[in-house]
């Protein structure tokens, strides 16, 4: 399989020294290899998404039309959707279309799926970005703050808050935000989206509560990761070396500790992104935002399988793509990682 990541076999690491190295080669090679891996992973993901909907019992046309449909109408729909062709032909047609930007026709809306998704992404993407921004800002600040005060009251407070953050489901937090800000204080709309044409302010206003609900809950995990990554690094010998050079604690933290803590933090952020996508679907539901998540639910209700397939594929591709960039960023930070991929 192509996407196998070969790690150093048990062989003695003492002998991997290479004196003929040049930095640019190494990064370039890594980028190239990682990109091939990305393509292979995407291809595999598309097979999985296509395969799951394929393998599951039931004729897709039958599922779409419901049990009461006559065999003739089922056959007609199957023909219209190309379901009477072979598996490989259908996969090729689907993936070929997706690559050309043609996502196929929605059976329920009777319109091309591409524009349908684009319209929804205009809500979902800003929401995810906003939430990620909140998560990162809160988590890095709180995590660094706590790590610096290990065991003191500030640390204990941050850890307690993050423990609560871990326990609160994001959709309930969203409901609570609605209760407080929309129902009680009437500061923000309780749901819905006015559209970007209603003005940036109003559109962002509709997104701020959902983004907070998503971002703050995610921040709980990342705060803990940041703190623990930083504490691990602060225990390293090179931190003592930096202090022995005469660097202040502050300079040691910023110049030596944080960059080293960044790779594990970024890696977790990449993994969290999948949760963020999932969370966005739920939170969109709470706030009745016309995002991708809503499209998925409507399509499930409409039994519009192709739309579900396209949306899931898109979300998975985004997650895989984000993790690709995380790996690249980690390799840019840490020269040791550039030799890992094969």
């Amino acid at each position, binding site marked *: 399989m192509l996407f196998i990541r070969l790690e150093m076999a048990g062989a003695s690491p003492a002998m991997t020294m290479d004196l003929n190295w040049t930095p640019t080669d190494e990064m370039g090679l890594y980028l190239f290899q990682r990109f091939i891996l990305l393509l292979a992973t995407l291809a595999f993901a598309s097979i999985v998404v296509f395969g799951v909907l394929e393998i599951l019992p039931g004729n897709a046309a039958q599922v779409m039309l419901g049990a009461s449909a006559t065999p003739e109408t089922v056959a007609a729909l199957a023909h219209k959707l190309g379901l009477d062709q072979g598996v490989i032909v259908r996969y090729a047609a689907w993936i070929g279309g997706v690559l050309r930007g043609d996502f196929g026709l929605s059976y329920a809306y009777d319109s091309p799926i591409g524009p349908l998704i684009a319209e929804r992404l205009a809500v979902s993407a800003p929401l995810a970005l906003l939430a990620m921004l909140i998560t990162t800002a809160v988590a890095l600040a709180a995590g660094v703050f706590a790590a610096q005060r290990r065991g003191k009251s500030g640390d204990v407070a941050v850890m307690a808050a993050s423990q609560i953050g871990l326990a609160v489901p994001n959709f309930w937090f969203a409901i609570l935000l609605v209760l407080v800000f929309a129902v009680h204080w009437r500061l923000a709309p309780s749901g819905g989206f006015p559209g970007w044409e209603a003005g940036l302010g109003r559109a962002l206003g509709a997104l701020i509560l959902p983004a907070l609900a998503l971002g703050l809950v995610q921040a709980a995990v990342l705060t803990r990761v940041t703190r623990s990554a930083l504490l691990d690094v602060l225990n390293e010998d090179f931190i003592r*070396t930096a202090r022995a050079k005469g660097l202040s604690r502050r300079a040691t933290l910023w110049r030596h500790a944080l960059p080293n803590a960044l790779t594990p933090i970024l890696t977790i952020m990449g993994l969290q992104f999948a949760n963020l996508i999932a969370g966005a679907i739920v939170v969109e539901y709470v706030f009745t935002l016309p995002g991708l998540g809503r499209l998925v639910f409507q399509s499930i209700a409409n039994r519009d399988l192709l739309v579900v397939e396209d949306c899931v594929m898109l979300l998975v591709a985004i997650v895989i793509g984000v993790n690709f960039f995380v790996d690249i960023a980690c390799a840019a930070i840490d020269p040791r990682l550039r030799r890992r991929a094969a």
Partner: protein
Amino acid sequence: MLLEVAELSVDLPTSGGVRRIVRSASFALDHGQTLGIVGESGSGKTMTALALMGLLPDGATTSGAILFEGRDLLKLNEAQMRDLRGDRVAMIFQEPMTALNPLHSIGRQIAEPLILHRGLSNAAAHAEAVRLLERVGLPDPVRRARAYPHQLSGGQRQRAMIAMALGCAPRLIIADEPTTALDVTVQAQILDLIADLGAQSDMALILVSHDLAVIAQNCERVLVMYGGMAMESGRTDDVLARPAHPYTKALLQARPRVGARRGERLQAIAGAAPSAGAMPKGCPFAGRCPLTIAACGEALPAPVMLGGDHMARCIRIDAAERAA
């Protein structure tokens, strides 16, 4: 005197309560002199070294005095200590792989104290870093300066560590087990390098090691530590030729020697060193010493001067002399 340590004690909080890791250690060192601190694991030798740098773990408390260039380091505040560290006093650590930041190039790490203490520009500091790498005997220093730690061998990394310590021409270098992680042949080269550089620039050197032989060959004076206490100290020749403390004697006889008869029984020291949590009130060696009497366990033995600055802390020195 460059350095005078008087009655230094270090207490460290642990999960089992506060532990005294160093117990009333005293020693002195002048410009250009070399002192070896030898001890087994848990003897307090590394904590003594870290106390000199003001880099003890958080929560550690100290008593006594560390006079360096006339100032008591234990009374300086953090900012004053920072000005000394890396400038007047520098340290070389045991594991050069973990003691170097994996994300920064060697050159950048060597340049850092130069920028900090000498106010050099980035470019000037990097040029100086290359010169320092050349001075510690790394071939092709320009390229080595651009390399990252994982791209060098263990010996090369330790040379880079030494270059970093040398940067600001400190008056005192503390080397904590600088060769333990290295192979024997590389160890010899690194020790030679440290000795040469020290001699060239009249730096004082404190070499911390578990290996008495390493210290014997590299230090004029030696301090033997055990259970946090300085058991014996003096000129290396004197201590090796006429060890006064039963522990030093036992240590000298415990090692197998090249050229000795095969299978010959070694003079093993029975038992194991007391842990910091179970340290006896008196002499820490009391439980394992063949000459132990009741009084040994009661109070910390006072220093006994044996001519010159040869000192041993043992109340049974007379008996030890007779036994020898």
